[in-house]
């Protein structure tokens, strides 16, 4: 890590209990501008729960989630509804794909534009010039996003008819449509073949550099993680056990133990 960049997301001592079960145990983590950070760990380590806390789906038991948008004041995300979190500029994808399956690919992305547009009920009924222009803007900008992830040819297909890898990319495009400055990707490469994974690899890098969006990803595919991310955080049994550059992580005995103790494909 060279110079100190602007800190975008700061999580301090995040703890989440479900009944008696402590799924996440005082985990702290930071994401800076321009970074592709990764959160890794064996199955059931609490990574997705961590994501759900950050994005407002769960309200954490303890800890602080602070968002520092550039040029705006810091906001504490604890207890905010998911849509508020998204409005603040933090978008996400899901581990088990959650697309709107009976909508077309384009429409899926258009939904992402919802929180950045504002036509209300009455204006939609009257359908004045401003509304029509906004509609057209939604369509155009959504289509451009499809071009970016390489799905423009499928724009009018139903999203449920897309191949698996394309569905994952569509989720990313949809999340980007909300104009985030930080993107949380939950296992974007799960279920992909090596070719698709390497395409994804490039896509993530492109988003990071070209769009100036910082990325925090959960991933099992170690090759992908080691290739593109820095820093890397490792979780096990709800606790953070290591953090650092890919090299540091590779050499960390705790990490090796955690992974060897669990499964080999990691």
């Amino acid at each position, binding site marked *: 890590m060279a110079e100190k960049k602007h800190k975008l997301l700061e999580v301090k001592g995040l703890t989440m209990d*479900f009944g008696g079960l402590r799924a996440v145990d005082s985990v702290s983590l930071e994401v800076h501008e321009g970074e592709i950070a990764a959160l890794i760990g064996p199955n059931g380590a609490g990574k*997705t729960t961590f994501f*759900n806390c950050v994005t407002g*789906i769960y309200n954490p038991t303890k800890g602080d989630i602070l968002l520092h948008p550039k040029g705006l004041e810091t906001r504490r995300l604890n207890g905010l509804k998911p849509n508020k979190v998204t409005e603040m500029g933090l978008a996400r994808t*899901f*581990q*088990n794909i959650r697309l709107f399956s009976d909508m077309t690919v384009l429409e899926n992305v258009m939904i992402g534009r919802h929180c950045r547009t504002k036509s209300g009920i009455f204006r939609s009924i009257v359908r004045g010039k401003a509304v029509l222009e906004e509609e057209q803007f939604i369509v155009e900008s959504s289509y451009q996003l499809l071009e970016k992830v390489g799905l423009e040819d499928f724009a009018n297909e139903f999203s449920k008819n897309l191949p698996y890898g394309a569905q994952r990319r569509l989720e990313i495009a949809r999340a980007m449509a909300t104009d985030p400055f930080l993107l949380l990707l939950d296992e974007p490469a799960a279920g992909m073949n090596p070719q698709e994974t390497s395409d994804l690899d490039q896509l993530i890098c492109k988003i990071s550099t070209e769009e100036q969006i910082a990325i925090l990803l959960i991933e099992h595919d170690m090759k992908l993680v080691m290739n593109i991310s820095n820093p890397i955080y490792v979780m096990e049994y709800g606790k953070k056990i290591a953090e650092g550059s890919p090299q540091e992580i590779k050499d960390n005995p705790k990490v090796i133990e955690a992974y060897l103790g669990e499964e080999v494909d990691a």
Partner: protein
Amino acid sequence: MEYFLELFLGGTTRGSIYALIALGYTMVYGIIQLINFAHGEIYMIGAFVALIVAGVCTIYGLSGVSILILAGVIAVIYASAYGYTLEKIAYRPLRGAPRLSPLISAIGMSIFLQNYVLLAQTSDFLPFPRLIPEFAFMEPVAHIIGSPELVILVTTFITMILLTLLIKKTKVGKAMRATQQDMSMARLVGVNVDRIISLTFVIGSALAAIGGVLVASYIGQVNFYIGFLAGVKAFTAAVLGGIGSIPGAVLGGLVLGWAESFAAGYISSDYEDVFTFGLLVLILILRPSGILGKARKQKV
């Protein structure tokens, strides 16, 4: 004090019937997350079949308790058969469909079954023979609790114990619990999930039929529409207690029975159904998982 006791026992009787029907809702919901809207109709069909059997038997000269048992057994068999068929026709083809589909199918089935009985039989109320004998030993307290109420309470109690044993102690019960917790996992370890689902419908329907026969012989009349309101109330009971939870259904049924009984007794029966649904809304707002239900962690 006596008045309180009267209302309490009246509420318990009514509540235990709700509980019997609510068990069917809760078991089905626990396994396939479906409100089986047609469950109330199964209860009605149970009562109707019992009425027909009892009627035929009386005319051909059988007597008393033997009819009750015969009618009860045949009603249970038929209700189970209807429950089984219902699942096969209306719900199985819709597994994996969007959530609204099986629900609408269930509402359709409920309307269909009501009108099927209406057309095949009659819209009139039919007299149900009073099969439950009046016990002499109950006479001193008959104004507080009569023999039929006693029979209802005892039968319900025994049924519930049997059900608990079935679920807790047998292999089938274990498979049912496994399926309830995680259907795909249960399938992996070799549970025939389709069969377990069918079985759940069969058991639920049998319980509803027992309820139907008890109520019919207590109240003395049956028509095609009795299932609708009973079904809605029992579902409310299941939600109150925590849907998916078996002790919850029993508790929910009793709570609802008491609530209705005391509301009618101490306040007014003008707004009886308003109390019931008010209670439901209140519970759903304050404690969406019900009294005994566990909050299901939504998988994201």
